């Protein structure tokens, strides 16, 4: 442990109202601490600059998976383990379950939360591409009220997002409209388990008579934020999967992504593999 522990403070509010009040009263002072799977790594390394944390792990208002006719709503503190155990998600939102199963270790899956994953804003996170594909909405609450935003526009640039001081992510809402869609997810990590993504590709399409009627594609680790590949989607809508369509879509993808070299992989690798995975997705659609 390299952190100087006495410099850190953590408080545990009784309920959501108390938490929001605390956040509002001392704006920017308190940072929420959910499962801690990202923050503890930084603390261990002595690289956690923020010192005051609000432990929100016990807030019941942020828990639970609720299935309604139109939507499935997941509390922000839903863990990856809980995601994998939910039957509705397994049936209608299988990509979310696969992303959850591909995240970290079993211990991480027991502590790590969807809300924390969103707020940590890593472009290499495994579930955000899936949330973009399912066009998830997220509810953001503060002492002053609540608002819903589309997740696809939530992140603005590297580690920047549409979340202000005093606000918490409360829930994630998925519209139950993907039954019958062809769905694809592939995480290319540094190894087969307990790995961070080098590229994470999620996509789903509604097919009508062999044509792509609607499609959503999102890719992680190829841009400063999880990339919603809108131009690729445009190039595919109304098309039949095939070599010419693939070529155009791949070119659109190459133009949209801005991968970099880092210690885990190279820009060149990410660029080529993103193209290849798009090819694999189109094979799924054609098959």
């Amino acid at each position, binding site marked *: 442990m390299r952190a100087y522990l006495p410099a850190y403070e953590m408080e545990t509010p009784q309920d959501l109202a108390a938490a929001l009040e605390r956040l509002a009263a001392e704006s920017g002072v308190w940072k929420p601490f959910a499962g801690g799977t990202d923050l503890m790594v930084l603390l*261990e390394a002595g690289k956690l600059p923020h010192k005051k944390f609000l432990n929100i792990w016990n807030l019941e208002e942020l828990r639970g998976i609720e299935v309604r006719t139109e939507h499935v709503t997941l509390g922000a503190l839903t863990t990856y383990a809980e995601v994998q155990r939910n039957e509705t998600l397994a049936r209608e939102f299988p990509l979310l379950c696969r992303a959850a199963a591909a995240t970290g270790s079993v211990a991480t899956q027991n502590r790590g939360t969807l809300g924390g994953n969103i707020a940590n804003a890593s472009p290499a996170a495994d579930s955000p591409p899936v949330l973009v594909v399912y066009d998830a909405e997220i509810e953001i609450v503060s002492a002053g009220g609540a608002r819903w935003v589309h997740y696809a526009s939530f992140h603005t640039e590297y580690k920047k997002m549409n979340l202000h001081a005093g606000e918490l992510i409360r829930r994630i809402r998925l519209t139950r409209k993907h039954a019958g869609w062809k769905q694809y997810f592939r995480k290319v990590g540094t190894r087969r388990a307990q790995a961070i993504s080098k590229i994470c590709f999620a996509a789903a399409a509604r097919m009508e008579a062999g044509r792509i009627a609607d499609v959503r594609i999102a890719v992680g680790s190829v841009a400063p934020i999880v990339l919603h590949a809108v131009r690729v989607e445009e190039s595919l809508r109304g098309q039949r999967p095939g070599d010419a369509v693939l070529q155009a879509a791949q070119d659109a993808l190459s133009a949209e992504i801005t991968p970099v070299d880092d210690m885990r992989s190279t820009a060149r690798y990410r660029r080529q*593999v993103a193209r290849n995975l798009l*090819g*694999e997705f189109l094979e799924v659609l054609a098959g």
Partner: protein
Amino acid sequence: METRVIGKSVPRKEGREKVTGRARYVDDLSFPGMLHGVTVRSPAARGRIRAVHFEGDIPWHEFTVVTAKDIPGKNCIALLIEDQPCLAAEFVSHPEEAVVLLAHHDKYLLEEARRSVRIEIEPLPGLFSIEDSLAQKEIIWGQDNIFKSFYVEKGDVDSAWARAEFVVEGTYETGAQEQLYIEPQGMIAQVNGAEGVTVWGSLQCPHYVHKALMILFGLPRERIRVVQAETGGGFGGKEEYPSMIAAHAALLARKSGRPVKIIYDRAEDMVATTKRHPSRTRHVTAVSRDGKLLAMDIDFTVDGGAYETLSPVVLSRGTIHAAGPYACANVRIRSRAVATNAPPHGAFRGFGAPQSVFALERHLDRVAEAVGIAPEELRRRNFIREGQTLAVGQVVKEKVDMNALLGRAFELSGYHAKRKQFAAENSDARGAIKKGIGFASFLHGAGFTGSGEEYLASEVAMEAMADGSVHILAGSTEMGQGTNTIFAQIAAEALRLDCEQIRIVQPDTAHVPNSGPTVASRTAMIVGKLVETAATKLLKTLRDSGFLREGYSAEDFSRACGEYITAHRELKSFVKYEHPRDLHWDDQKYSGDAYGAYAWAVYVAEVSVDMRTAEVRVNDFVAVQEVGRVINPVLAAGQIEGGVAQGIGFALYENVVWQEGRMVNAQMTNYVMPTSVDLPAIRVCFEEIPYGRGPAGAKGIGELPLDGTAPAIANAIAHATGVDVRAIPVTAETLLEMLEAVHA
């Protein structure tokens, strides 16, 4: 031969303690008044230390601060030579070199203090590659940046080129690799006037630490004591580095007058301690029309990092293994270890051989291709046989049948059928998965090289107690590999007792004789033989005394020990290594009997390559080896499985990312070792030909599996994809680029 316990998988001696959490590792130990210590390290790769600033809001007066000025003896970590400082005084030669030591009772405040020491350095240009070091862009060590070089010559290489039908050339590279023992390095030291210096720690070689501390403190032998705590893995990483951390803890203990504990966290362990030497090997090989090796010209270079440490010895083993288990009349090996401004590279299971064996076995597949014969056919035509001479001039006197090992490995792996099947399946150009199968054939010498064992002159003692328990006293350490258990088996067999009656005394330089370092696949074969001899002597003493008759039971033995001790006070035996008279080694010519015995092996790897992501998966692995008599089958198979797993990491995953001599991916998330889901079934098969000089016929085994794993995998990747693999690790990134080149 009927045996009691040899060849039986008796449980690990210390297994129960370990799985129940009762085993005490160094970080489990605590002493009254103990302080914690940390090391402040160089931010630069090379330069002159201008000043050290103690900054921040830190109560510095509460801290014990040690710099080079506080060293009572010589400022060095004595090993082969004395070039490496214990603490940098004027110059730093690599990133993370130790400059200042701090101790305090509050380990959290200590970390804050470590961050508040600023070492001001006037930078000097550094060397960060073998090429730059050889080109002498700077002179950073000695006259020419070369720690050591060897020249091995057999026959006349230059006479062979003219009559060769084929001449095949190639250059091969291997990367650095972390040992990644589960327990990071750690040490506790206590220094006082009466007893001198005592250290307890996680280590492989107590007497290496002992020697280093004697010179650092300028104290006589009896004023230094080194005790091995339970050790959670070593793999060579705790061969030489523990001397450094012991020295640091002891300096802080001396100055503070309190016991001091230093425990590295994983990040510090990865960034500051030793790794496997990166290497570059160039082969030029002359071959006849029918695939006979006419000449092998081998040039082998390893990157030793900033100080010499064990580089000459690593280079030696790599050099001797560079020509493999083949009979070739003309061989020339030129090799050298060079200096760069990286932390010193050091001992790691295999010790130079995995590097040169990778180059050779990958190269021979390319030679076979050039000749137009199957890779196994090339090996078969050149395998060494009993009575033939290895590259260093050693006549093979053991029974060796590489063809039989190859046949067995191929049979177990279904090699021929798969070779054919994969070639057919891979011909579909659109196939997303390509499969391949490849192998490597190799040898590994057990024990110290050449006259090393003679110089070491290892010693083992044994003492029987009045209750009939027998204690083994040796400096050989248990670090997870099974020393305690096989020693107990060897002694029990010789004494005709059960293993429970044998105790292994904790290695402690105050109480055990120096049985040499626990390295070089020497513990079972060399020290085990001393244990066997000590047991035989003990038994003879008891018999000659008349207290013990033929056909005795365990109770008889215990009674006899009691009676003997009543009569003679104690019952002990003591054995010193005697070098076999028929083993000769010439250090000048670098020729002769390099090792008393070799393990022989053929490993087969089956891989699949995902053409979309260039990810390689090892689907099946067969490891066939002849290692003499197997003492404990479960432990022996565990050694091979673990070694193959480490070899898979070496081949595919473990990639140290360097930036000006510093490892920048020093976390286990970003330095990627394979997990259990990345590993195939590893099928281990032992052929046993008892070795006359080993205990119960055993040879060395520990390092062997690191040698053949990586080249077998590289050859399988080449078979699957047609890519000419020249360097490891074969990461998905490098393979993708090579695939693009092949298909362009």
